[in-house]
């Protein structure tokens, strides 16, 4: 599985760096390697957490608080890289986006979207905006629930697509997921206001 990826990491394409949810990579560190894992979408979350905790015990800046300044700076940046790697791998979407970028496929700012989906999401956004304006929290909660179901559905498709290395399909799903996430963020904001 690992061999099909370029081990030098993804290209530092400015457009890629601009992407939401794509965490930074200090000095081209491979987040999977930092946690002793091979790069793959399927991750054993319990094992990931164990690996993160074990490495944190060694790498955390608190362990080196009395070390010379230069060493502390190095420790801080290693600790940052480790934390960021954990965040990236832990969450399915950043993990998928990273693996996609690593395979040389990037998601730009103006990607084409399935027109049917675009129409639908525009309508749903309108409905949400109206519910928000009318302070209809029940409706907002219902819209949120429906969208969460779609998110789960979209995520469930990813393991199969990664197994088949269908990068095009993965990319399409991830673009859809961005719209879904933005919508869910808006639902959260609306419910917070209430």
């Amino acid at each position: 599985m690992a061999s099909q990826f370029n081990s030098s990491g993804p290209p530092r394409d400015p457009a890629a760096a601009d992407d939401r949810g794509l965490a930074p990579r200090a000095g081209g560190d491979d987040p999977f390697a930092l946690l002793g894992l091979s790069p793959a979408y399927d991750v054993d979350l319990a094992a990931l957490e164990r690996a993160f905790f074990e490495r944190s015990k060694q790498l955390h800046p608190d362990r080196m608080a009395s070390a010379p300044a230069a060493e502390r700076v190095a420790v801080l940046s290693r600790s940052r890289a480790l934390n960021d790697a954990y965040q990236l791998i832990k969450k399915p979407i950043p993990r998928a986006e990273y693996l996609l970028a690593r395979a040389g496929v990037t998601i730009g700012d103006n990607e084409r979207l399935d027109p049917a989906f675009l129409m639908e999401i525009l309508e749903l956004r309108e409905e949400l905006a109206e519910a928000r304006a009318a302070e209809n929290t029940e409706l907002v909660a219902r819209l949120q629930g429906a969208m969460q179901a779609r998110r789960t559905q979209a995520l469930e498709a990813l393991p199969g697509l990664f197994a088949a290395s269908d990068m095009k399909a993965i990319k399409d799903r991830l673009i859809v997921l961005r719209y879904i996430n933005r919508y869910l963020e808006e639902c959260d904001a609306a419910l917070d206001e209430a």
Partner: protein
Amino acid sequence: MLMQIAEPGESKIKEACKPRVVGIDLGTTNSLSAHVADAAPEVIDGDGGPLVPSVVHYAADGGVIVGRPAQARAIEAPHDTLASVKRLIGRGAKDLAAVRAMLPYELVGDDRAIRIRVAGGRRVVSPVEVSAEILRELKARAEAALGGPIEGAVITVPAYFDDAQRQATRDAGRLAGLEVMRLLAEPTAAAVAYGLDRGSTGTYAVFDLGGGTFDVSILKLVDGVFEVKATGGDSALGGDDLDRLIVMALIPAVADLDRRTIGAAVAEARRVKEALSDLALDKVTFELAVPADLPRAGSNGIVHQVLGQRGAQYVTVCDRLIDGQPTSAASDCTTCMPGRYRHDVTRAQLAEFAQPLLKRCGKACGRVLKDAELDKAELDGVILVGGSTRSPVVRDYVATWFARQPLCDLDPEQVVALGAAVQADVLAGGKQNVTLLDVVPLSLGIEMMGGVVEKLIHRNTTIPTGATQIFTTYADNQTGFDIHVVQGERETADACRSLARFVLRGVPPMVAGMGRVEITFLIDADGLLKVMAKELTTGKEASIEVVPSYGLSDEEVEQMLIDSFEHAEDDLARRNLAIERVEAERILAATRAAFASDAALLDDDVRAAGEAAMRDLEAAMAGTDYLAVRDKISALDVATKPFAQLRMNRAIAAQLHGVSLDDAARKVGV
């Protein structure tokens, strides 16, 4: 046997080698410090226990008093006695509009930073300086207790403090002459104390309701690792608010009262609230002296104090009156005294008054569980932290909300300092097996064109962390980037907290979208932010340690530090003088009262000597030499000793005979 003899010496040597570091809980209401002696953390005791009330009194003569003696001044000098200053730290005028009316002292300053006018209007201080006074007091106590200078401190902050509030707290530590080793989130510190004490493993919620801040954190504890899964809360919500809610419920016309009376009303509300923490009581009387110059009206010879709208028909405040009519003959209405307001408060009423506050807590709990992607049934326990969780009203709410009995076997007011002491020990190279993985409480981002926020770092990201993002020019021939750093969850910059603004100039003129700037956010283990910007076509860089939009710049802190060194001796003398004067006043008042009440026990010689000593003491108090005041206090003590001895004998005799002091006094013929 030999082992036992050798042991104390050995531990002394160990003690001597160990760096003297402490954990400090700088609280809204009370502050305290703790340290790790051998293995377990212990709180550091001082006069009257480990807690130092977070109250600072600025006397007109320049003296500064901290803690209990300052608290004693709050009623008579509310403008110069600052409490709950933690609510002001790192904040601007805009943030404080809501609480301003309820504060007894005068806030000045602009939107950038709040200042308080004190010392009879002669001095203006910042919340950072006030907090530094509290920290100095804690430092002095710790140095006295540990027998030497403090080499470092971990200071706790509410998990939900934003970057400006954290920076300001760190500045206060520096100003107090402390080496701030780390800022640590309060609920995380509490979890450390619990985790070590009980050897707990699992996922816990920490419900931390202090005097002025509320945090709720979800932590996972595994083999010495404390990972914060999510944190939430409200850095302007606490027990203080409940005091205010009580006052507003009992006195609808509170805005008509003067500041001194409002201060007294809030203090009385706190007393009632605390008294109701005692489960044996289910009703406590709220009682307040009201100034005589408020409009009042008579009824059947009894004067009811008016607390209604000024000049309008008064709202009676006597709880014996219903709808303005006495429930019984007016002559029975003993609770209606001129100038006094009385009202019984039941625990059920207290719970009702607290509802708005508790609902906000519940909402934050819901959000933090969602962020942690957990159901409350998946938690292994709920830990109570903060003085306000002593209240049964709060405990009941937490128990109901989480559907389980919360843990409170460690003192909720000490647990944060204990955890901070452990972390200080770890940072000083101690052997504790503790690794803390804390998070950013609020998202950090940049204001984009049109005022929307682009988040670079999302809330609940483990720290230290960083993020880099590239932004492009918006207009043709744009030659600079105006970078506005904000913190918060709202979509627009004006609804978020403004942390800093800076400008990156020298971008070569290009078509819109061609100029590119790379912005990097770095967050260290204290949760403090550093921002760097790099123009990519020329490689021009700008970097700032976020100079807070609120609070103090580094230069201001430096200047204050220089000033404080220059005036350190003066300050110390002034502080001592202020303390001695308070003590002298207390003793004078007590002596006069005793002379008046027990005149029969007083022979002429003792009376003359005592009165002379009192005059001497008063003369010393008018001067500026605190040592002279201290001497005269001792002299008065000596002069009145025979009298005190007689009083003591009589009290003992009365005790032995099982009669009250009043009876004894009558028998003596007073």
